């Protein structure tokens, strides 16, 4: 090959390419990792990611201008080992992660892989095949970002090279997940035929997640230096920080644990948590990103007919509680999956208590026929 950075359209070559040291290009100032430049890269990347967040899944974010990025500097510890398993998974259907994974901080490897599979399984439920080709492109680009030495020009060229590679692998990707060692946690469930399912998809309203930054924090310092942070030690022993995109609130404790609330999807919650972690990191703390877990998901939807709650509470007594003078909704505790539903007379249904998106969908599909039976004429 004439120039080493140009990638041939097959995976193994990619692999070998990544093993080569990064190539400086005109767009990248320099390759040497000085902290200042790292920060500028981080900032550029972050800004780009924030614009990318607004993009719908069907648009590939990498078609937008240069991916400037050199996270390789950060993951100097384990570049090669990081890649090899990841490369195998390159053709996974990563999903609509248009918010490119901000692997700004060295992540626990297993955590990263787990996340991929979880996200992938979610998308299996949501997306149909039409989007799959996009999905395969996206993970590749994301993969490349995670700890890759990407130069912008070679990035874009390699990106274009990769497309044919994606094209080849697109067909095989649906099968891939099954054969991968880290197979999806939730098996690919086929969409139920329209006649059986309700046709209504609950919309996520709020996600509460926690992450461990794994270092002791000086809350006062954070409150003083960070924008949009409040700290009132007499009232509550945590810093309350807010960011606008994704619109979320975080509670940051001095132990290093953080709670992130307000996001509307799992990816957004993760992205927001990473942004908060980055803020903390920028302030000089050695923040990491451990054990990101979604604690609670809240979704709501509307069945569009009035429901007789008196009838429902009578027949489903062991699951429902209804005290209209206290709360206008009926509280239905579904056992499998373990979800709490708030059912209102107007037909609005709120589902909460879920740790996975599939639980919410399953719970709604379970309750829908029951609600239809109590439709108020």
């Amino acid at each position, binding site marked *: 090959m004439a120039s080493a950075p140009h990638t041939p359209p097959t995976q193994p070559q990619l692999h070998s390419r990544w093993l080569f040291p990064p190539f400086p290009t005109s767009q990248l100032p320099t390759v040497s990792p000085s902290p200042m430049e790292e920060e500028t890269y981080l900032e550029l990347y972050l800004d780009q990611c924030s614009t990318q967040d607004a993009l719908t899944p069907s648009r590939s974010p990498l078609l937008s201008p240069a991916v400037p990025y050199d996270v390789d500097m950060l993951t100097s510890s384990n570049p090669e080992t990081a890649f090899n398993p990841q490369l195998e998974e390159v053709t996974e259907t990563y999903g609509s992660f248009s918010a490119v994974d901000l692997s700004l901080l060295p992540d626990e490897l297993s955590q990263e892989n787990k996340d991929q599979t979880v996200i992938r399984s979610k998308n299996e439920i949501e997306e149909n095949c039409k989007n799959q080709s996009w999905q395969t492109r996206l993970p590749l680009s994301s993969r490349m970002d995670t700890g890759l030495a990407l130069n912008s020009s070679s990035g874009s060229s390699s990106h274009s090279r990769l497309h044919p590679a994606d094209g080849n692998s697109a067909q095989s990707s649906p099968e891939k997940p099954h054969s991968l060692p880290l197979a999806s946690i939730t098996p690919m469930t086929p969409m139920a035929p329209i006649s059986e399912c309700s046709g209504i998809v609950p919309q996520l309203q709020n996600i509460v997640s926690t992450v461990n930054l794994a270092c002791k924090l000086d809350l006062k310092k954070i409150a003083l230096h960070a924008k949009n942070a409040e700290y009132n030690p007499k009232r509550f022993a945590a810093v309350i920080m807010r960011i606008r995109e994704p619109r979320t609130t975080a509670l940051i404790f001095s132990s290093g644990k953080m709670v992130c609330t307000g996001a509307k999807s799992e990816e957004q919650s993760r992205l927001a948590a990473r942004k908060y972690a980055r803020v903390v990191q920028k302030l000089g703390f050695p923040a990491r990103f451990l054990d990101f877990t979604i604690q609670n998901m809240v979704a709501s939807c509307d069945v569009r007919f009035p429901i*007789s709650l008196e009838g429902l509470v009578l027949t489903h007594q062991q699951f429902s509680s209804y005290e209209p003078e206290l709360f206008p909704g009926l509280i239905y505790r579904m056992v499998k999956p373990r979800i709490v539903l*708030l059912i209102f007379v107007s037909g609005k249904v709120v589902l909460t208590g879920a740790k996975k998106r599939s639980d919410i969908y399953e719970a709604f599909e379970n309750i829908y026929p029951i609600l239809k039976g109590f439709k108020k004429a």
Partner: protein
Amino acid sequence: MNNTAASPMSAATSSSGRSTGKSISFTAELQSMMFSLGDARRPLHETAVLVEDVVHTQLINLLQQAAEVSQLRGARVISAEDLLFLMRKDKKKLRRLLKYMFFRDYKSKIVKGIDEDDLLEDKLSGSNNVNKRQKIAQDFLNSIDQTGELLAMFEDDEIDEVKQERMERAERQTRVMDSAQYAEFCESRHLSFSKKGSKFRDWLDCGSMEIKPNVVAMEILAYLAYETVAQLVDLALLVRQDMVTKAGDPFSHAISATFIQYHNSAEGSCMKPYPDSPESTPPPTPTAPSVGSQHSGKTTSGSLGNGSAGQDSAKTKQRKRKKSTAACGVEAHSDAIQPSHIREAVRRYGHKIGPLSPFTSAYRRNGMAFLAC
């Protein structure tokens, strides 16, 4: 029956004097509440006034007794424990109250998880709010429980028959409604005393008391007020049902003199069975006389076929157990509850029956038959 001092009818002067002096009236809300509890679409104003009287009197009395109790233990505020103490003798009602408290806790836990602002509010206000009422109740009952009966209530999963009956009645009521009427019905079901906290406090004249109730105690009082209204409606519906002649009723010739007093001549001939003691109600239940359950109200004739379950287990019944078949749906009374029904209901309720009646409740001594506790 010597509850005259406290019964609303005779105390009408004093309580009405109080209520006319006040400008606070819950009459309009009560009318809606009664509709949601089973009365006609537009309950009568007089009935609502009477119900308000009854509830007001009973709550004031209850508050005074609670104040005494808390004085006994040297506290500065009336708290939930005092009210729980007063109710300790009546297990069913206590259990209903506990369930209500736990539901309140549970609901705040859920609602908090939904809205992130609520989550923050809660965190900021201190983190022992989870299950606070449950903890209070459990700790207190733990401390006063000698025989283990009270604590057994926490694990008890028996169906609350009165609640069951109310649910069934509500379902029957709403079955025939269209969605607009149903929406109205639901709106009125949402009414409660707890939503009008300050008005409720003033109505009870809490400001002039030495020992005032705290927040949880106010919640319980609001609940008890609502429960009183519900009991009154339950009983009044029973009374009204009794007043209707039932064909083929073998006891139609037996009637008590006291009943006739309250009986409207307009209601027709006094062919109503009113046995002197509940024991002799037609078909189902010989309620064991030894229970002396001062359920002065009748356990109504299951003659219409829907004898509710548990009518027989007189032993478990405390005096508030009115087994109403509440077959009102069948008879389809479209008229509203009259004040006379309410009066009769209260009279029957307070009627002491059986040898053990003076011993069943702490506050019985003072003469007031509390409907809600």
